[in-house]
């Protein structure tokens, strides 16, 4: 199981008795092993037991100091101290200050009452968890019999009683995933971002000015494959019309475009395009 993010906290100094089944030990080094505390209540119960004090009469002053020591130790060890530990630290400080005031000046009742209630409730949970733990160990070793009835195939049906919102949601997502896999999104044909005529004009002008254009090098400088394709089509079109000549000395070497023997006039490109389309 992935470690619960909220499970933080180390703490115990060696020599403290812990039920090994109920505590995950974090090996920190060859000599120190610190158990995790599963929250501030877990840590407090530990301190109460360690100090052998009654849960109904917690010596807040000393427990509060020890709690803060533990928090500091956790921080010194660079363990992330979850917010709930800090919240409890603040609560304990508040209780400590109330306990220091003469009882008559505080509001009615024992200021520790709420803390005691929460500790008792949590202790009950731990008791039951420990019973479940023992049961879990034994029950894990039990296998249900499952003879297949001879008369027919076995269908894996779900108990309707056990179908909850989560199963329903999981099923829905499975169906939709299956649907998406069976219906891949159609290939989208985007309008061409480059125009063959423009490219023909561009190449034609380059040749007219420089008399030569190294086509491969020119193509390699274009990062967009779509532009490359349009450029090639434009070049081929110019060659077809006789407005350019392509030369290559050896296979795979640079292809040079040079001026052809036909002049293109403004407007003749549109015509060329139309002629090309008629082919």
């Amino acid at each position, binding site marked *: 199981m992935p470690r619960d993010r909220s499970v933080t906290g180390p703490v115990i100094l060696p020599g403290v008795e812990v039920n090994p089944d109920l505590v995950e030990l974090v090996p920190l080094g060859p000599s120190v092993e610190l158990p995790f505390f599963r929250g501030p209540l877990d840590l407090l119960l530990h301190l109460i037991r360690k100090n052998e004090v009654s849960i109904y009469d917690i010596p807040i002053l000393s427990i509060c100091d020890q709690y803060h020591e533990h928090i500091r130790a956790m921080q010194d060890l660079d363990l992330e101290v979850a917010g709930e530990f800090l919240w409890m630290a603040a609560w304990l400080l508040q209780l400590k200050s109330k306990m220091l005031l003469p009882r008559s000046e505080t509001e009615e009742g024992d200021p520790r009452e709420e803390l005691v209630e929460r500790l008792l409730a949590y202790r009950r949970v731990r008791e039951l968890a420990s019973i479940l733990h023992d049961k879990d160990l034994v029950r894990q070793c039990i*296998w249900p019999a499952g003879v297949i*009835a*001879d*008369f027919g195939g076995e269908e894996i049906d779900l108990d309707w009683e056990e179908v909850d919102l989560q*199963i329903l949601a*999981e*099923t829905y*997502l499975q169906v939709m995933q299956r*649907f998406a896999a*069976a219906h891949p999104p159609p290939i989208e044909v985007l309008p061409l971002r480059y125009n063959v005529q423009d490219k023909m004009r561009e190449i034609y002008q380059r040749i007219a000015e420089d008399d030569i254009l190294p086509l491969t090098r020119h193509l390699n400088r274009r990062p967009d494959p779509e532009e490359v394709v349009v450029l090639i089509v434009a070049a081929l079109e110019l060659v077809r019309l006789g407005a350019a000549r392509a030369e290559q000395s050896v296979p795979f070497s640079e292809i040079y475009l040079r001026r052809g023997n036909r002049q293109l006039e403004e407007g003749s490109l549109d015509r060329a395009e139309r002629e090309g389309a008629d082919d």
Partner: protein
Amino acid sequence: MIDDSLQALIEAVLLTARGPVTSDAISLATDREIGEGAIEEAISGLAASWEEAERGVRLERSAGGWRCVTPPQFDHYLRTFHGIASRQKLSQAALEVLAIVAHRQPVTLPEINFIRGTNSSAVARTLLDRRLIRLAGRKKVVGKPFLYRTTKEFLLHFGLERAEDLPDPEDLVEPEVAADA
């Protein structure tokens, strides 16, 4: 391991196995502590004793192994029993249709069929009979197909007041952690 224990172990293996079991596989499970011969012998003993007494299962040799089968005279009762048991069950297909109706309602049968890629009318019928889905008018498209919605009973089962309280499936499968943090 003494004889009685061995027979008990073999019985446990045979009753939890889903298909024919070879003595070799059982021997392997004991880390070859028990040889195939001894196991074969124990199985034969078991088979004979089950045959003798009137029992609910028998052992038969098949496909190179042994398997547990129920005697044919119980077929009728078993069929009835499994039929009754399956009444409280939902097939995978039914669960799928229910999930689609729940999360896309109102939805038509052609839409459900399209999503599942298979005809779902029999399943929808079962869900109607079990009052988990209901007819909710017709869609104003060609053929005017019926629209399906979930029922009050459906909501009751999931502890919801309104269909709108159904959580977003993505949120549920991605844990509540996110909402919490």
